[in-house]
């Protein structure tokens, strides 16, 4: 690393200077108190909110589970009504998956990732806060419905036609579709944040191969969220359009197909399982080396396995559909892929065992939970191998055997590792330790209770008990096993009560934990005790995988402020951004501090989704307009700000720029990653079109005229024209022709909107009616998607023109325009694909031209 050779030696220690720097850092990073606390955006605060909120939802879903277990304890029980039970199991699955398992990953990552990276915060603190508020509002909306007897009752998988027909399922389904879409926005926001955090905010010197395993997993899972959630959003859009407006996607009488939903749902749903599982394995991969006192054996194998699982997980979705009557050839392929995923999982587990073998094992509560996780998860993995075989699955599918299997994988693969992580990182977050004695109690109650509840369920399934039944008869012979399971569930719940007490009990008199109490090797333990809000005193060069073990004297250097950015002279929150591969310092990124704008935006966006659920269109529209206005306010005042000087001294003779645009900037990467997710959702719609083509003899159907070719072509030309104008504007601005660039930025939106209007007109001219046939509906939904995106893009252009006019956007400081240009590249692709599907595909697919 040549650049480190040029660094000046640290200045001799000066107590007065150290104290002055500390006080300036503290001023900048100090968190608001009292009511103003709600304006906080710093990762450790937002992460804590996220964590507590996810656990609150976990308790809610857990109570529903206990209610269900009480109902099933004896045959022919009437504790719960059928309607309530159906809502309860739908909500249990939905809340555990969407409001606990995924958000808790994001919560832990938001809290820990910057510190593990020796960074001060994530690159977009306000985005994290916005995501959190969306999550909270959406979650309360979805959960609250059960108190009004209006909760979703179509199962967490929401299969149409049960869910697509408003006569079959009520408002609950709309709450599910819109409420969860809203929450998915938060998940994707967090994924973007975390991916860029890992790629661009690593400490200098931490090349990719030195990156802690935890960060690898975060990167992999962030990527998975980006490709897995959008297909569900596309599916949600189709399902809600059918429910609210009668657009045909799933109604077989009009050319729809219920299996389309199953594909879109499980293309999301199976990766989802690994999105939940991998972050927890990441916790084990972080904790285990600490207590083995040995670096992970097979570090790169673990990384490769995680990547391998991520890839495979997108090729397994059909194993949730083995009983839908697909041809045996597809069944065989997906059966093989499902078996294959056990191999990288096995590699990871054996790397863990090898690390234990080579190290000097130190028993601890986190390791107790990790061992429990291993025992449970391996069991669940083995039953997973069973159900991946089609004939076995034909028996097991939708029986209690699956209930047992999935809880073994999720509780062993997700919950127990998470609890290990809670015990491990509790002192990191609060500077206090949890009790060992209570920890053992909690573990044995949970472990014993879990196995008492779920082990017998395998046999209940083998005795033929199906899932999602609120009652069964005495003659079925399932009573005894169910009673045992219910008892186990309550024992397990007692374990959680012990944990909750331990976490929440007042610890005022308890002494502070030692610094780095577990003697770990990773950077998050470099924090001082009691913890300081600045994340890290000074940002060091990292040259090893376990810096606290392998870089002598590092803590002292960091504490004395001998490394980078030890000061906050300009009174700004500053991060160091490094390059993706080698983590060479690139520039200093200033991040914004506390604000209520994120909360306001989340409230208004929540209004859009919530009012739309009830078809209150006027408040929906008002909220939408308000949201756009608030968003512009947030962006105008908080992003793309021009610094007061071009570069700054980061200490040790390192001078870094204070501004970056284009592909150097983190904002550009955020746009890029967001648009990858956006394209994935668009491909979900394209998938729908192609799927319909495969299930229909003729698609477009005989007698339907495809959209008018001439208008379509005109529309495409105009959309591409708008894209060309935006590109030209970007170049002209850079060359100093600011006036001309502004003019183009004002013309381009008109051209683009006219283009998409022409494409819409092409559908109207051919008399396509989305309530008539799936073909018409699919064409219209593609147009609708394009129109929405072009409209958003059209708003961005006058924004840039106004920034330029107000002097916030100059030929050099052009980050806003560069990001918007990137957005328009994706628009060009979207318009082109839409044109090809609507205009060209019918000509080659043998439809009626």
């Amino acid at each position, binding site marked *: 690393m040549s650049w480190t050779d040029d660094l000046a030696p640290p200045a001799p220690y000066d107590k007065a200077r150290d104290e002055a720097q500390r006080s300036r850092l503290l001023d900048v990073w100090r968190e608001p108190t009292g009511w103003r606390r709600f304006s906080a955006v710093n990762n450790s605060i937002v992460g804590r909110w996220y964590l507590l909120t996810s656990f609150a939802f976990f308790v809610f879903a857990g109570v529903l589970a206990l209610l269900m277990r009480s109902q099933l304890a004896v045959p022919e029980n009437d504790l719960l009504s059928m309607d309530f039970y159906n809502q309860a199991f739908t909500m249990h699955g939905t809340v555990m998956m969407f409001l606990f398992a995924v958000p808790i990953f994001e919560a832990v990552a938001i809290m820990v990732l910057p510190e593990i990276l020796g960074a001060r915060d994530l690159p977009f603190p306000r985005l994290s806060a916005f995501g959190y508020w969306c999550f909270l509002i959406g979650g309360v909306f979805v959960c609250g419905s059960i108190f009004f007897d209006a909760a979703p009752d179509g199962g967490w998988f929401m*299969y149409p036609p049960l869910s697509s027909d408003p006569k079959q399922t009520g408002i609950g389904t709309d709450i599910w579709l819109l409420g969860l879409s809203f929450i998915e926005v938060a998940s994707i926001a967090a994924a973007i944040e975390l991916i860029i955090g890992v790629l661009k905010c690593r400490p200098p010197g931490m090349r990719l191969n030195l990156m802690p395993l935890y960060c690898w997993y975060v990167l992999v899972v962030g990527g998975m969220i980006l490709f897995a959630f959008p297909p569900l959003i596309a599916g949600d859009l189709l399902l809600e359009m059918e429910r609210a407006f009668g657009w045909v996607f799933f109604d077989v009488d009009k050319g729809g197909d219920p299996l389309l939903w199953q594909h879109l749902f499980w293309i999301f749903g199976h990766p989802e399982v690994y999105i939940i599982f991998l972050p927890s394995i990441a916790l084990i991969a972080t904790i285990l080396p600490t207590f083995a006192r040995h670096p992970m054996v097979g570090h790169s194998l673990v990384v490769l396995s995680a990547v391998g699982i991520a890839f495979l997980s997108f090729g397994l979705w059909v194993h949730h559909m083995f009983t839908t009557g697909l041809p045996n050839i597809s069944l065989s392929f997906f059966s093989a892929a499902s078996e294959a995923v056990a191999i990288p999982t096995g590699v990871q587990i054996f790397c863990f065992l090898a690390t234990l073998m080579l190290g000097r094992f130190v028993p601890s509560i986190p390791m107790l939970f990790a061992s429990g996780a291993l025992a449970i998860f391996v069991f669940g993995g083995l039953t997973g191998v069973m159900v991946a075989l089609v004939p076995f699955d034909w028996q097991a599918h939708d029986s209690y055997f699956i209930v047992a299997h999935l809880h073994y994988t999720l509780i062993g693969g997700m919950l127990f590792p998470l609890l290990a992580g809670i015990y491990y990182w509790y002192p990191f977050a609060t500077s206090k330790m949890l009790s060992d004695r209570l920890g053992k109690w909690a573990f044995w109650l949970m472990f014993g209770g879990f196995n008492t509840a779920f082990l017998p369920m395998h046999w209940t399934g083998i005795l033929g008990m199906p899932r999602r039944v609120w009652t069964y008869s005495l003659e079925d012979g399932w009573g005894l096993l169910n009673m045992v399971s219910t008892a186990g569930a309550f024992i397990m719940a007692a374990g959680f009560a012990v944990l909750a007490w331990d976490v929440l009990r007042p610890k005022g008199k308890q002494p502070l934990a030692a610094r780095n109490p577990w003697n770990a090797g990773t950077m998050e333990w470099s924090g001082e005790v009691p913890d300081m809000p600045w994340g890290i005193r000074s940002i060091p060069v990292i040259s090893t995988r376990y810096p606290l073990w392998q870089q002598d004297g590092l803590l002292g250097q960091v504490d004395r402020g001998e490394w980078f950015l030890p000061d906050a002279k300009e009174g700004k929150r500053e991060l160091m951004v490094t390059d993706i591969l080698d983590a060479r310092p690139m520039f200093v990124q200033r991040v914004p501090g506390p604000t209520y704008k994120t909360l306001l935006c989340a409230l208004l966006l929540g209004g859009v989704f919530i009012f739309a659920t009830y078809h209150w269109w006027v408040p929906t529209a008002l909220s939408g307009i308000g949201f756009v206005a608030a968003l512009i306010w947030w962006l105008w005042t908080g992003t793309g700000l021009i610094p007061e000087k071009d570069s700054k001294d980061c200490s040790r003779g390192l001078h870094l720029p204070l501004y970056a645009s284009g592909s150097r900037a983190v904002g550009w990467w955020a746009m890029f990653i967001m648009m990858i997710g956006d394209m994935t959702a668009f491909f979900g719609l394209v998938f729908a079109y192609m799927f319909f083509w495969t299930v229909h003899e003729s698609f477009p159907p005989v007698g339907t005229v495809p959209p008018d070719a001439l208008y379509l072509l005109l529309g495409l030309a105009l959309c591409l024209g708008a894209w060309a104008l935006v590109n030209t504007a970007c170049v002209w601005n850079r060359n100093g022709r600011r006036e001309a660039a502004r003019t183009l930025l004002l013309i381009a939106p008109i051209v683009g909107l006219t283009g998409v209007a022409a494409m819409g007109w092409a559908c109207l001219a051919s008399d396509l009616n989305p309530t008539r046939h799936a073909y018409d509906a699919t064409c219209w939904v593609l147009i609708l998607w394009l129109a929405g995106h072009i409209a958003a893009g059209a708003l961005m252009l006058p924004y840039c023109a106004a920034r330029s006019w107000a002097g916030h956007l100059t030929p050099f400081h052009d980050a806003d325009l560069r990001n918007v240009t990137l957005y328009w590249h994706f628009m060009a692709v979207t318009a082109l694909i839409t044109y090809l599907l609507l205009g060209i595909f019918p000509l080659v697919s043998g439809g009626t031209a």
Partner: protein
Amino acid sequence: MCLPGCSGRHYWFSGASEEAQSIETLAWILFAGAGVIWLIVMALAFFAMRSSGRSNTEKSARRMILWGGFAFPTVVLAALLGTGLLTLKSIVAERSDLTLEVEGEQWWWRVGYPGGVVTANEVRLPRGRTAEILLTADDVIHSFWAPALGGKIDMIPGRENRLTLTPTTVGNWGGLCAEYCGGAHAQMRFNVIVMEPDAFDAWLEDEAAPAQPESGPGLEAFLGEGCGACHTIRGTEAQGLVGPDLTHFGARTSLGAGILALDRDTLRHWITHTDTLKPGVKMPAYPDIPTEELEDMIDYLLSLT
């Protein structure tokens, strides 16, 4: 019938058909293998924690990862996949001796046999013959599962799925809907009655005949209350297609889609307070039928054998 703890009518391993037996063999191989592997991994974990720090080398650790984490699972999984696919091939018969059509409804089963015979909630099969069951649905997705006889296949609107079963044991087995299909999903059951082939042929012949008797006060009451709008009794004016065909209702073993034993008192309760026996049921309750009329109707229905 069966006390809690014994295997019951829905037991996967009842061995009541060739298909169920094939799956059972596969299942026991899987259970035994899984048990052994689980014990080995746990023993390794225990050993790894115990032997921590003793004379283990990086090389032996890598070897363990390669063999235990990669080579062993690859070989075992490939073998299992092969076994699974062979089993799959063996349980899907190309040809069959008999074809049934079963349609899932909310929340009962319409069962059709060759020759236009339609019954409900009861699938009768001849022992030793391969039956092909064509599965459809019109309202929502259901799934046909008789665990004692084999696996389940979904019934999806717009599609026709196919399941083949070759029963080997005479008996009355349980069947149920395995895909959540809304409200009363839990109480959507049926019976699979496996009969000797001769008995089955005779039963099918009886079933093909119209209702006996074709008139009487009970039928008058039935038609008078409008029951014919939903139910068919072949040979009478009752030609409704919404609910189950009742032509040979009295010969069935159960009521309410496999959830209740058929007897006089239960039937009376069913007609007058339908949704207390089966919440969510689509059939309206008739609490106000005059007693005499009701008894006539019950007599008549039970006489339809």
